[in-house]
């Protein structure tokens, strides 16, 4: 019956209840978004890295993967040395450079990103159409490259590693066939990309790229102590740095620390707003019903029941607001994610706002707890009213 009373009290003042629920909904949505933002970037990036199936990345000393055009020489020997480590099961060297293609239709030149790799161990693209590279003159491209160049799967095309704009001359050209279309997981949306065997790219680059690599992806055996392997590999060659997944995540965290801090601040503000709204409504509601509450105490309703009834109002407001806030939060997260997805150089599939049910439940549970706390003070006030005095005052009023 107390729950019925609590519910009836909320329904009695529909407009104010609706407005309070609306306010809590927006606060809950904002809270959910900020929780998603706080963990989304990191988990999204972790998803990328782990999706590739490699635990370590070997880069030129002091650089991050593809952060610059620096390469490390003696790539073949280096890859062999790394592969010889007892804890290493797979090494995938990568060479990143430019690709240029001349459009026959208008003689314009389209530039893009060219990735040299070993197709049998690669983890940088997911085939959507066609087949994997099987020969030196076979190429996989992405949809953006096909659209820009006007080519299609199966076409034979001349591509080059260099372009001399003064002489309008392609340098390091090669005739290749497009055998597959893939989604390059680490590239920004709209960025044109192609992949060839690393040997082909090295040959196209001439002396500048001979036996060089930008990054080597290393897969360790199951159960290997990754940090020990990392230290070992890094110590084995002064020209390289070895980066673990944890270090890469830490780097991303630092780069995007602003968003985490913003998320924390806005989440705190949302909780505070939700708390204030609920406590204000419940306090006003109690103030209007002092006589009723005193009578309930007078006819023998226990204190804790009064507290429970009043707090039930706060919990109900928070719960309904939290549930509605989930829906609104997911919608606004999509909108905000769309805005942030325009970051230059951001991988297309990267999400700033990632929905994790456990995080969502935790944050909304926090909001409901706030609702409980918000109702606690007015509830206690209501339950400890001096009955006779209150009845007298209410009679006079």
């Amino acid at each position, binding site marked *: 019956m107390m729950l019925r009373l609590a519910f009836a009290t909320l329904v009695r003042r529909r407009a104010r209840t609706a407005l309070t629920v609306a306010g809590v909904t*927006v606060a809950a949505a904002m809270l959910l978004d900020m929780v998603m933002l706080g963990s989304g970037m990191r988990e999204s990036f972790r998803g990328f890295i782990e999706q590739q199936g490699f635990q370590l990345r070997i880069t030129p000393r*002091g650089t991050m993967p593809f952060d610059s055009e620096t390469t490390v020489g003696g790539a073949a020997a280096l890859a062999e040395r790394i592969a010889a480590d007892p804890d290493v099961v797979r090494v995938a060297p990568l060479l990143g450079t430019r690709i240029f293609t001349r459009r026959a239709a208008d003689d314009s030149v389209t530039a893009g990103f060219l990735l040299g790799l070993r197709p049998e161990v690669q983890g940088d693209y997911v085939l959507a159409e066609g087949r994997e590279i099987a020969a030196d003159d076979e190429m996989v491209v992405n949809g953006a490259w096909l659209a820009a160049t006007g080519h299609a799967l199966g076409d034979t095309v001349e591509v080059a590693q260099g372009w001399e704009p003064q002489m309008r001359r392609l340098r390091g050209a090669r005739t290749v066939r497009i055998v597959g279309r893939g989604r390059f997981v680490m590239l920004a949306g709209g960025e044109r990309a192609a992949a060839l065997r690393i040997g082909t790219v090295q040959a196209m680059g001439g002396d500048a790229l001979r036996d060089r690599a930008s990054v080597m992806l290393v897969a360790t055996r199951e159960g290997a102590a990754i940090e020990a392997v990392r230290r070992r590999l890094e110590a084995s060659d002064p020209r390289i740095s070895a980066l673990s997944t944890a270090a890469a995540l830490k780097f991303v965290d630092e780069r995007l*620390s602003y968003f985490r801090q913003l998320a924390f601040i806005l989440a705190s503000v949302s909780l505070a*707003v939700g708390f204030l709204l609920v406590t204000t409504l419940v306090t006003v509601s109690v103030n209007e019903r002092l006589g009723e509450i005193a009578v309930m105490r007078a006819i023998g309703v226990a204190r804790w029941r009064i507290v429970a009834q009043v707090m039930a109002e706060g919990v109900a407001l928070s719960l309904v607001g939290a549930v509605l806030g989930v829906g609104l939060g997911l919608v606004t997260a999509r909108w905000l994610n769309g805005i942030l997805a325009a970051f230059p150089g951001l991988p297309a599939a990267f999400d700033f706002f990632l929905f994790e049910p456990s995080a969502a439940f935790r944050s909304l549970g926090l909001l409901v707890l706030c609702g409980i706390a918000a109702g606690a003070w007015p509830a206690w006030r209501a339950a400890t009213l001096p009955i006779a005095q209150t009845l007298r005052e209410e009679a006079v009023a």
Partner: protein
Amino acid sequence: MSGACPERVRPAYRSCIVALPPRVPLLVASLVLAGPLAAQAAVAPERTIAIDERLAATAGLSVGDRVVLGPVAGAPGDTVRIVAITRRGADPSEVARSEFKVRLHLEHLQSLAGSGDRVGRFAVQSSPASSPAAVSAAINAAAFGFRAYPAAEVAVETSATFRVVNRFHRAIGIITIVASAIFLLCITLLKVDERRRDMGALRLLGISRASVVRAVVLESSLVALVGSVMGAGIGWVASWLVNWHYQGVYATPLRFAIVTPGIVAFAVALSLALGVVSGWFAAQRLVRRAPLELVGR
């Protein structure tokens, strides 16, 4: 550009690779650091360089120190003297980049890198009388194999990140304003409703509906005005804190948050408008009801 130089170098050797941005693809420099007293025999006459304060702090270098500069780690290079430590500019595009910058004479870098007479770009200063757009158009008309861009265009391009951040902030601002509006309306409604007996008594005494509405709107407007002024003050303090914090984190003089008179005026005007609207709505709900009903009869 990216670079990561490990711990302080004295007295041991360390090497770190510093690569210049893709805009200067042909020029790759490597800095090999040695203890200040271990000046190696230089192949060429002593040259001078300037390093940025981050590198100086990380590697423990100061003006007057000698270092060996080379294109590749471990390879012989030039012994140079540090003559200046530079501060980062207020460039948004550099804020989150944790790279080191070394400045040296162009011919020196060209000879070190073995690139010959090549550069990545020219910076051109036009005369005050001419417009950058006109100058770049004239250059482009005569150019063969390169392009000229007005600096403003380049600034826009390199500010793409911050344009995205601005849009994000604006979106958060819209959400905050919507939430605040609902909050304000809710609170005003509650507080006005709480005093309905007083309002009913006034109406019973003969005070008109319009007067009651005016009184409520005036009250809620005053609350909104005072609140917005206080909020502007809090915002100003918060922006100072934000700038102090992030300038320290990113070692930049860039200002991250600026509270301008326009922003304050907008905030106050919006708060006032919301106060008026919420007060009006709350008052209307009251004066619609019969006075006797309001006093509980």
